[in-house]
């Protein structure tokens, strides 16, 4: 089949502040073809596609649609070019029906004729093989149905270039297969399609060509038929880079947290964590790897007492100095306050630093208080100790701030994280959990954080490090637990494993599900 070029990207560069999200990327999207855009988290896939959808505007470079240079400054412009993007976060109005959402914002002549719209929707569905009820309200829909509405919305507007941003992240294997069938039908219809993903088996399954991005750079593209998951992994993760993070050997690690059978369902009833069991040892750093949304957040929040766990779960905590065979303290069923009161010193650096870990409107002193304000019997809080602590953290971690009472919301990302980590470490915890502790930080601050974690480990603290950069996980941690679809797909020794092994574990269950 002759594949004509639908879109050509030429030397596209996009910067956010000092961060280069896309560095001179050139890419060709063709009609009658499904292109996989593959890359790790933060490799710039979504940013690149958002420039086609009119969400971002490129700093440099040129976009050609059907050979003509175009300017896409808004989602409207993208529609006019025939480009439709299905975002990860659906843009639907909950109280509207499918049909109302689909026709929303269209500037057609005449009155609103939902019956005619429903007819057209049914036609589209029949043509490509999906099924939706045009009169169903969005709030009654499953995730997969909502996704279908998004796709139909784009097709209804006559898009012939479709971009799907990680469409399978929220789908069951069966729903994924259905989606792929639809995609093949659309391909046969001559549409150009891009699927953003980091799941290798899906790439192999559905796409004709694979383009790989790594750290904002375009690595290359290959025909799917001529490649293998192994080769793609190599392209995606690159060769292991030496970071020279200091990693002393653990000194007599002892079991600290014993988690068994942790299962979490979210508000929508979707299983986010599936029977997870592991032991975190005092004196070592346990890394947790996995593609985004594999249950990392739920795992940490469950330990902190912020997530409801299904029956049968148990988290036993053994403080430093517990004798062998001692039962330990059960954390499951306790609120965060009860956990604290039962003498567990648990430090937690959550992913959403300002939204969950800190009080943005308060200064460093006020934020130091968050963990200690209940101290003392008086009605008033003790301000002296937190002020001293704030000054210590400021000095030791070199926090750049006009003063200890300057609202932390206005500090830079790195300084915000230093305040949070500094406070959590100051609790002298026996368990320290961190989620994406170096996300968005510069190199120097990242190393400061690595050193702090290692320091804690040498003090006998059980450190749990949820990370996304495999290079860091491999050099910082002692053991790595890999999560995949809410399950533990393997626990490996960080010193002897390879990037490839961890990478494959990250997608292990999906492959099994797809094979079965």
């Amino acid at each position, binding site marked *: 089949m002759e594949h004509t070029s639908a879109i050509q990207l030429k030397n596209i560069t996009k910067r956010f502040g000092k961060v280069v999200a896309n560095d001179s990327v050139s890419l060709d999207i063709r009609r009658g073809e499904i292109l996989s855009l593959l890359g790790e988290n933060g490799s710039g896939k979504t940013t690149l596609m958002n420039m086609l959808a009119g969400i971002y505007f490129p700093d440099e470079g040129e976009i050609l649609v059907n050979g003509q240079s175009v300017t896409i400054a808004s989602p409207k412009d993208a*529609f006019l070019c025939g480009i439709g993007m299905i975002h990860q976060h659906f843009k639907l109005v909950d109280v509207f029906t499918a049909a109302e959402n689909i*026709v929303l914002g269209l*500037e057609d002549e005449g009155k609103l004729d939902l019956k005619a719209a429903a007819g057209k929707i049914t036609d589209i569905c029949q043509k490509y093989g999906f099924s939706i009820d045009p009169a169903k309200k969005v709030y009654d829909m499953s995730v997969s149905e909502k996704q279908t509405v998004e796709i139909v919305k784009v097709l209804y507007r006559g898009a012939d270039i479709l971009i799907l941003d990680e469409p399978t992240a929220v789908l069951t294997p069966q729903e994924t297969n259905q989606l792929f069938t639809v995609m093949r039908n659309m391909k046969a219809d001559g549409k150009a399609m891009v699927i953003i993903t980091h799941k290798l088996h899906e790439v192999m399954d559905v796409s004709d060509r694979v383009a790989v991005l790594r750290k904002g750079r375009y690595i290359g593209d290959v025909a799917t038929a001529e490649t293998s998951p192994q080769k793609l992994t190599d392209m995606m993760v690159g060769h292991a880079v030496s970071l020279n993070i200091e990693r002393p050997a653990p000194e007599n690690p002892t079991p600290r947290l014993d988690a068994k059978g942790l299962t979490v369902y979210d508000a929508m009833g979707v299983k986010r964590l599936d029977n997870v069991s592991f032991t975190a040892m005092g004196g070592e750093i346990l890394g947790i790897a996995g593609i985004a949304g594999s249950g990392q957040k739920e795992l940490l929040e469950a330990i902190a007492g912020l997530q409801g766990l299904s029956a049968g779960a148990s988290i036993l905590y053994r403080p430093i100095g517990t004798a062998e065979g001692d039962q330990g303290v059960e954390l499951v069923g306790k609120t965060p306050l009860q956990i604290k009161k039962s003498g567990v010193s648990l430090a937690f650096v959550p992913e959403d630093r300002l939204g969950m870990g800190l009080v943005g409107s308060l200064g460093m002193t006020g934020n130091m208080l968050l963990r200690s304000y209940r101290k003392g019997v008086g009605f008033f809080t003790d301000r002296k100790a937190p002020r001293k602590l704030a000054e210590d953290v400021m000095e030791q971690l070199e926090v750049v701030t006009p003063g200890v009472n300057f609202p932390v919301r206005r500090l830079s990302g790195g300084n915000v994280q230093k305040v949070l980590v500094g406070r959590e470490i100051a609790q002298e915890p026996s368990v320290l959990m961190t989620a994406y502790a170096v996300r968005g930080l510069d190199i120097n601050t990242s190393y400061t954080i690595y050193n702090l974690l290692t320091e804690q480990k040498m003090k006998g603290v059980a450190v749990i490090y949820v990370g996304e950069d495999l290079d860091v996980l491999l050099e910082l941690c002692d053991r790595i637990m890999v999560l995949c679809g809410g399950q533990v797909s393997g626990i490996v020794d960080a010193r002897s494993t390879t990037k490839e092994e961890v990478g494959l574990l990250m997608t292990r269950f999906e492959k099994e599900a797809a094979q079965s």
Partner: protein
Amino acid sequence: MTSTQLIQLIQSAIVFGTVILYGALGEILTEKSGNLNLGVPGIMYLGGIAGLAASFFYEFNNPAPSPVVCLVLSFVAAFLAAALGGLLYSFLTITLRANQNVTGLTLTIFGSGVANFFGGSLNTMAGGVGQISVATSSAIYRANIANVSHLGVFGSLFLSYGFMVYLAIALAIAMRWFLGRTRKGLNLRAVGENPATADAAGINVTRNKYLATCIGAGISGLGGLYYTMDYIKGTWANDGTIEALGWLAVALVIFAVWRSVNAIWGSYLFGLLFWMYLYIPGLTRSSQELFKMLPYLVTIAVLIFISLRKKQENQPPASLGLAYFREER
């Protein structure tokens, strides 16, 4: 209660209800765009005084005023003055992103101030309280739409009101049609529910909010006009009644669960509840006051009920009270 009394009660309920129906209809349109405008009482004041003043100056300077001119002048003046109040609110909350609650309350203070200030001046000009004469205007607002004397009970119940009563009903039905059956209505509802989605679908969020708020304010203002022209027969009194009615209109929006057609019977029900005490024998004056509490109590009950049932269609517009900023790009 005799049948005459019953008819009287229903008549006064409908007249009372029409004042707050206008207020509530305007506020429904406003809230559908995501703006919670607590300035309804102020806006109704603005509409009332502007309509009255326009008629007054016209009739004051014309020995033989034309009823049609009276009608058009007062109607347009009331709508425009109230819409200007809405524009002020929109500019502050949408463009300058000021807090909606605080801005609305300020508008209530301002509107009642302006209205009572000029109302007082009008009274002075006319030679004292109750001396304002807009007889021609008031007459045309109060004229029954049909000659009912030979139509019996049916006529007195359904046809014995000025045209504003029927206009309000028509407006409510038109609003239902607009919100539910037209593209513009669909777009407007999307703005109030999820402005980010509306924005992504190419709908101009700011424009929709401005238009809905200003037109909504204009409609609310007609409630003030109806009150001055018909309810108190073309006079002005600085007694704060419009303010109380304005808050009742805000309550009616909740009671009608943001549906304009529900507001029709809701407003008459509020009227019945409000006037019922007159017809219940043996009530002391103090217990009459307790009766007037009923509209608010049922509104609270409705509010609690919808939050308990959590039925999606009955919730306030999802982004009600929140300002919308497109994320920095």
